[in-house]
């Protein structure tokens, strides 16, 4: 096939992939660096199959016993953090991290351990009141502030796509029934983020976009007339379609406006876009690096990263523990067999990669502090090891110290102190200037997180 020049351009530009553009684009708003205030960013990241929490029911350490040195929880008791073998990679970041114990989404309870990973970033009640998932925390933030950057948000994973019900491979959802496919190929992510014109001239890109807009207009017209011929209930379904086309139109308009802004200069030193799953450390760090670069260049401010999905048996993630530790079995087996030697080491390996990312943010000065000061980073899973119980998630929050969050503690919400995990989400959103009062089943903000 002879590829027409404009065809490629538009493909690149319109390709939704994991890069979702939020609505609405406010008219007359100057684009890059639109405000004098510094960007406020958020990353939601997820690891699967839980974490090692021996010595206690449901992953709550037994107060009678000394703390296990390989427990995912850094210390036994709530209070200032001390670190054990599993969590020690975070010791240099002590002032920037917190652990939350006893939190979970009630909406995930009936899904069972694995499937509750679906609602980690949404808190949706998928078994009860909702048949499909609902909007995720990163998309709420993107809807509010995504217009200030070239891409409203960035949705990454290690396996790509959306996955299916109970086996999600993305954390992000635009709303009910609208999962956003995650991107997992480093080169492709890099190109979409930083080389969106695929080597074409800006004028060419603009001409293609203009025609695109006219075509979408015509489609809108005739879809409206179809809608008007239908009964009331059916109109609602076609409205979903119209909204989608409208958002494509707005995306075209937005992309077109951003052609007036220069593309960011990227320092690709040390970035290995060829990294493969065969070398988990190289690959995972590359994904973290891409998030870092997107944040650092203010290409986007909101990202989700599914580090591992809860259904990785068809992918190389299944072999990660083998590649990394020489463990003889599937990565998932660790969660069930809980071998004392491998369980802790596997958790620690994951901690090292996450700490690497946090450290990179912390090492990058920004205004009166560093990037981590203005980046809220959630890291966790939807169950402890034991039986994949969907209660008491491992939850780790970092950064945002200059956004009103405080750190350095293990907080514990066992028994009658229990509050929904969604409370933490409310406070995370508030920290990045999204003034929501509630999220999913929240009962208020997470006061323990606030400075």
């Amino acid at each position, binding site marked *: *096939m*002879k590829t*027409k020049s404009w*065809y490629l351009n538009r493909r690149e530009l319109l390709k*939704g992939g994991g890069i*979702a553009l939020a609505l609405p684009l406010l008219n007359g708003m100057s684009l890059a660096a639109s405000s004098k205030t510094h960007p406020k960013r958020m990353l939601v990241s997820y690891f699967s199959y839980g974490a090692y929490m021996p010595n206690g029911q449901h992953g709550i350490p037994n107060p009678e016993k000394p703390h296990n040195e390989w427990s995912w929880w850094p210390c036994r008791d709530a209070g200032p953090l001390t670190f054990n073998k599993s969590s020690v990679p975070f010791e240099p970041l002590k002032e920037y991290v917190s652990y939350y114990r006893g939190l979970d989404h009630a909406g995930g*309870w*009936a899904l*069972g351990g694995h499937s509750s990973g679906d609602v980690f970033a949404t808190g949706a009640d998928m078994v*009860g009141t909702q*048949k*499909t998932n609902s909007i995720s925390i990163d998309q709420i933030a993107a809807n509010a502030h995504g217009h200030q950057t070239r891409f409203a948000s960035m949705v990454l994973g290690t396996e790509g796509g*959306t*996955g*299916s*019900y*109970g*086996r999600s491979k993305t954390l992000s959802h635009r*709303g*009910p*029934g*609208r*999962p956003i*496919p995650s991107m997992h190929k480093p080169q492709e992510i890099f190109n979409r983020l930083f080389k969106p014109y695929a080597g074409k001239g800006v004028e060419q890109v603009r001409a293609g976009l203009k*025609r695109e807009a*006219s*075509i979408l207009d*015509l*489609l809108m017209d*005739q879809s409206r007339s*179809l*809608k008007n*011929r*239908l009964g009331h*209930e059916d109109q*609602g*379904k076609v409205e*979903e*379609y119209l*909204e*989608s*086309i409208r*958002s*494509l139109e707005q*995306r075209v308009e937005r992309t077109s406006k951003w052609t007036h802004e220069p593309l960011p200069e990227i320092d690709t030193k040390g970035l290995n876009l060829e990294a*493969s799953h*065969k070398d988990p450390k190289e690959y995972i760090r590359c994904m973290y690096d891409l998030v870092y670069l997107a944040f650092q260049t203010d290409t986007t401010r909101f990202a989700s990263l599914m580090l591992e999905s809860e259904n990785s*048996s*068809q992918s*190389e993630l299944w072999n990660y523990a083998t590649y990394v530790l020489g463990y003889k*079995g599937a990565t*998932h*087996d660790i969660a*069930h*067999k809980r071998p004392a030697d491998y369980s802790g080491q596997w958790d620690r390996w994951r901690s090292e990669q996450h700490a690497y990312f946090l450290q990179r943010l912390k090492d990058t000065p920004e205004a009166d502090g560093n990037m981590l000061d203005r980046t809220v980073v959630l890291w966790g899973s939807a169950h402890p090891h*034991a*039986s994949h*119980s*969907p*209660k008491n998630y491992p939850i780790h929050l970092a950064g945002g110290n200059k956004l009103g969050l405080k750190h350095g503690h293990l907080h514990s919400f066992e028994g009658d102190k229990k509050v929904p995990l969604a409370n933490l989400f409310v406070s995370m959103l508030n920290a990045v200037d999204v003034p929501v009062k509630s999220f999913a089943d929240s009962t208020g903000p997470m006061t323990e997180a606030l400075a």
Partner: protein
Amino acid sequence: MRGIVSVRNLGFGLLLWLGATTTLAGEEFDRVVAPFFKAHCVKCHGPEKQKGKVTLHNVDSGLAAGKSLERWELILEVLESGEMPPEEEAERPDAAKVGAVTKWIETGLRKAVAQGGETLVAPQARRLTNFEYENTIRDLIGFRLKLTDNLPKDPEKPYHFNNTAEFMLLGPEQVDRYLENARKVMTSAIVDPEKPEVHTARREWLRHGLNRGMGLDEIGVWGNRRHSASGGMGLKSFPSTGEFVIRVQASAILPPGVKGAPLRLIMGQTLSGSTQRVEPVGSAYLDNSPDEPRVLEFRGRIENYPLTRGRMIRGNQQPDSRVITPQLLYDDGTLNDGNRNLTMPRIVINWIEFEAPVVDVWPPAHHRRILFDSPLRESDPQAYVREVIRRFASRAFRRSASEAEVNRFEQIYRLVLPELKTMESAMRETLAMVLISPQFLYHTVADGEVTNRQYELASRLSYFLWGSMPDKELMELAGQGGLDDPKVMEQQTRRLLADARSQDFVRNFTMQWMSLAKMKTVPINQQLFPRFLYYVSVGERRGTEQPYRPTIRDYMLEETTGFVGELIRRNAGVANVVDSEFAWLNQPLAAHYGVSGVEGNHFRAVPLKSEHRLGGLLTQGSILIGNGTGSAPHPIYRAVWLREAILGDDVADPPADVPALSDSAGGSAEKALTIKDLLAKHRQKESCRDCHARLDPWGIPFEHYNAIGKYQPLVPKEGARVSGFNLQTHGDLAGYADYLKTIYTERVDATARVPRGPEVNGMAGLKAFLKKDRRDEIAENLLRRLLSYSLGRDLTPRDRFAVDAMLQESATHEHRLLDMIVTICQSPLFKGTEGK
């Protein structure tokens, strides 16, 4: 489906006032119904206890006004079936008293439905499922393109069909992907006028190396020599789109007694890579000797096959590549206890040829179907363009395109033509826009203007039975208004079911009906079943499923969907769902189940004997594995499956804080075997017992079937470890079999008294009971599921009487499956004339 003791269906927050009632129905309620509830129900479903989260002390006679129909339907059903009050209650009401109450409820329900209370609001407009989308494009352009991989996955929910409006939602990401797909489709469907370059490749293998066992042109069952034909042929040059043809000269070397060897060709990424994505090209059954080689020819679309992207090596971009690999899929159950390739069938491949695109006729037929030959093209290009759009859109929209629609797409054509220059390019873009229009993406709904009910009906029928668009015959019938004639409808239903496309329907329906997909992801315990999953070349190590080879698990899915298809084809009675005189098997699966005399990998009906302990769905591997733990049978999963999929109950989920019954997925062998103790745990707590007393007995009779779907009445002793085959320890496979006999020594008890039924002993007893006493229930369940699938919505209490009428009709045909489908298609509910 219909619920019994379902938390979801019974609104527990529903507090109705207990006021004085003045209507006639209210008078009877006060006299008959309320005292009955008070005497027999409120003890467990009242202010003190709310078993199953159901309360009955606070119901009122509001039924007459059409309130809470679902709740009343459930009460009616548990009373009618005798499930409530529980049989263990000492004081049970007599039949007459129950009858009076059920009569009052049924009368009220009928009245409420007739009055249109709680009217139906399920929207009919819903997007095509990914499955329907891909099929529709196939029938529209004339060849299959793999498109769903690029779309967000459709939601799935166990025991639910996903083709409903509430599941089929649409967002910008979905439309984005539709747009990408639409352009890809049109790039494939419309070609450029000039003949393209043809890419060819050929590789030969010679009989070298016979002195060392197998020749280089041979493929064995276990392992092959380097550089032999088993490595296939690599391709470095191929077009990005077009039809390919692959020719293979092949034969088989067969040991005495073996009739043939199954050959399969795959193409895709190189098998030594980490992802190994491949797609099958075709299969053949070779029974010819190397003296009489056969030339086989396979065709397909090159776009559908995964490729390996060329890498940069020292600044040079390497070409993309694909590999064509021949596979020998022979499996008669013989295990590999050494390299015995020479005693097994072998395939000989002399050469493989590849050619693409096929250009014997240019432009190809699929192109001329869209850009048809016509003098208009030269004489009146505008009229020609309009006609191309009209024809294509009318097929894509499954009804005639309106003048306004043709106008809009013509505008798009004129908008893009200046830049795209050629008619082919501009038409690709224009028709791609047809494929992202709502008229294409959404199911056809009558709007009284451009779409009449006949076209809606034609589509409903074809999406039901083909999962795809109506063909020409259906469209013509719709155009003549002929589909309301029940005779025509019956004839069309039978015609569609006889077409090969109906296999898509059967597969899609069956997978969701029985929630089959999970069987592919149950982690099989390889310590206990070291031989089940793997394909191992030489030697004796445990292996995993290889994505490029079909395994017993894949065959099991084919067994179940093929079995249902065969029941429909035979117009078999519904009792066959529970027990049948045949099984749907191929050789590897027959070997797995211990059925002899089946040769070849194609599936066929195999007559059963009682010693096979097979027949019906209950003993099929897909169900037994999917509802096991991978280590052990799981009586509760199997009980839930039986009640949901076969009996049509809606089994409530367990409370979230209950620990899983068994933590055995991938767990150690000894832990996996203590299910009985774990079951006993349930009976300790009252809250568990209420539900499990009604559930567990259904699962016990399955206990003689193990976690890989085999009949196995003996299990290892508590705590016994089972080791895999080891050449040093066991010597040979016979030695391993002897070892297993010393381990599997304990007889499993599979006796249970089923709720409202007798004591049944094992599977045979359970099947006999179900066939005899629960046939009508099973028929109703199947009919409701087929109906729900065909309408693309859940059924509501409002459908109750329509279903009753269909059931009566179906009973006159002994609930034969094909007749049942005809009954559904002829029903007013399906035709959309209900209540009109």
